[in-house]
């Protein structure tokens, strides 16, 4: 295990480190997209990545479950460990990793199938359910965790694409938790949603913190302040500052962080 982050934190309860990244470099062809990022993400905590567009926060998020593998020209260097295991080790199957590190995307992307099949797909391919009753239970539990059960329980076999944007996004979250991940990555999950749907999803994120380590990329600093306990500020591919959310927003150490949160760069 790694030591606690050297940046001193005040009121935060010391929890276990879930993800530890060291000297992470990401290249897109010749572009150096992520430069030397060190970060330690705690379990049962919401960690927010903020920063201006193109700063690399989404790129870094996608290195955590190796979604970047699908991009041919993308190259990752450095050391990223989940529970002490190097996820870029040759022995690691990215598919297995992604079952452990779930992801929710910017645009709600339910499969063009029924609500039930959307949620049941993950448990099915991972063999989590022994029989139909089992699967029904998993689906119900996941939809409840996704805070959407009451809205869809009467139409589980209606197409998932027929839901509203906010419902679709909560369905996608339910789909992600149905596979029992340990970490949940969220790439701007509310950017396509209206304020009401956004607040529902934010409440949900706070709920999910009890069981998961949640990493959320967001453009909205208010959102970061509302939902996260830890915040990382990225700028031009560098991790400028990482620490307790309260401290980042009230008393940032780096002048760039201060400029960004006060709206002078971005």
């Amino acid at each position, binding site marked *: 295990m790694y030591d606690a982050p050297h940046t001193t934190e005040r009121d935060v309860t010391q929890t276990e480190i879930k993800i530890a990244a060291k000297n992470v470099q990401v290249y897109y062809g010749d572009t150096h997209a992520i430069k030397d990022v060190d970060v330690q993400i705690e379990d049962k905590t919401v960690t927010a990545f903020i920063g201006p567009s193109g700063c690399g926060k989404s790129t870094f998020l996608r290195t955590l*479950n190796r*979604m970047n593998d*699908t991009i*041919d020209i993308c190259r990752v260097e450095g050391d990223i460990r989940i529970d002490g295991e190097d996820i870029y080790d040759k022995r690691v199957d990215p*598919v*297995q990793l*992604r*079952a*452990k590190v*779930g*992801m*929710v*995307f910017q*645009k709600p*992307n*339910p*499969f*063009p199938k029924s609500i039930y099949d959307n949620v049941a*797909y*993950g448990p099915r*391919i*991972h063999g989590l359910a022994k029989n139909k009753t089992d699967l029904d239970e998993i689906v119900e539990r996941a939809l409840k965790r996704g805070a959407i059960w009451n809205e869809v329980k009467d139409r589980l076999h209606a197409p998932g*694409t027929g839901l509203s944007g906010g419902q679709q996004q909560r369905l*996608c979250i339910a*789909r*992600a938790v*149905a*596979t029992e991940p340990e970490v949940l990555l969220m790439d701007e999950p509310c950017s396509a949603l209206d304020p009401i749907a956004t607040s529902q999803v934010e409440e949900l994120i706070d709920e999910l913190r009890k069981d998961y380590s949640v990493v959320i990329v967001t453009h909205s600093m208010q959102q970061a302040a509302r939902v996260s306990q830890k915040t990382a500020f990225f700028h031009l591919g560098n991790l400028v500052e990482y620490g307790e959310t309260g401290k980042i927003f009230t008393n940032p150490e780096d002048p760039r962080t201060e400029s960004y949160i006060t709206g002078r760069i971005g």
Partner: protein
Amino acid sequence: MTDASMPTDTPRHGKSIMVADAHTKKRNASEKRFQAYGLAAIGAGVFFLLVLLGAILSNGLSAFQQTFIEVPVYLDAAKLDKNGNRDPEDLKKVSTFGYNPLIQNAILEQVQAAGIDTPLDKASEMKALISASAAAQLRDRVIANPDLVGETVDFRILAASRVDGYLKGRVQREDLARDKNIDAVHLDIVDQMRERGLLAKAFNWEFVFGADASESRPEQAGIGIAMLGSFFMMLVVLALALPIGVAASIYLEEFAPQNWFTDLIEVNISNLAAVPSIVFGILGLSVFIQFAGLPQSAPLVGGLVLTLMTLPTIIISTRAALKAVPPSIRDAALGIGASKMQSVFHHVLPLAMPGILTGTIIGLAQALGETAPLLLIGMVGYIATNAPDGLVEGFMSPNSAMPAQIYEWAKRADPAYYERAWGGIIILLVFLLSMNIIAIILRRRFERRW
């Protein structure tokens, strides 16, 4: 055509928007002009389509009708079955030459009984009225049913091609001087027989289901066997081109790394789609017939050649269909831990299905209408053959294909074949139209929104 708006010197402020200024007028005029060009282009297209359809229908519909003579024929036992035991083996010894006099007699008797005024009084002089195929048809019927010998049976015989042409207006009395096959005396008989209802045009199923016939008996020729040839070729194309094409596209689109080698493959597939089909024909000749030793003129070889020709079409349309599936669906599947293959087969492929099916059917339709490669593997020409007995026979025995049959008819000397060529085109177009309708139905059925 659409120039970016240029900043004008005159200030725009303060002008009424009720009056269109010169710049706006010019812009609107150019838009109107462009729409007019488009309309004109569509108009021209529709006009030519109508001319084409009109020409095909007016020339080809008559091929579905044929002139028949209904006549009672006395099957003389003394001539057909000398031993009198009705043994099919004995009956087979009598060739069509034994039947011809019977039919000619029957016609003469009918002509005389009907009181038709003609200087002809010998049975053999009726030969010009009837198809050369009539004796063979009668013989087949007797061999199939030996008990008919000694009876008088009602027999519907094909009239000779010239008689048919006379009824359809193809053969004119003015041209008789140059025609050795029929003369005015016979046409007089035809006129009177028609008046008395002894001879009439009727729908001819033999044209749709029958086999090709020799140069001298166009009235007997049909496209049915060539249709079977096309059918067996399409089976080969479907069984090979669809799985190979879809597998290749999925690999190239979803799995293959992006490098110079895959780029090269991609460029070559696009180029293959534009290679003249006759090149595939000569490739088939040298590889499948000369090297692999497969039989000439066989639908199997034709199908293999057409497979090669169809593959690029299927690959290109399948790749386009796969590309059109939003990447968010792949991300979603990968994000919950599906493997690459699971994401492709569970999510991407079903969404791409309408496009794949459409591409496949269009590729098949293209293959169905292809003639040039068949020239080189010997599927064009007078291939007189009976319907194949089974699947193996269907793939391996010599056959023709619909477009090849049409080409073959179009190049024969007798103008009666000209009509049949147009008729064949109608049948081919019906097939192509139905395939396109199937493509549309499948696309509708599989189409889903996401």
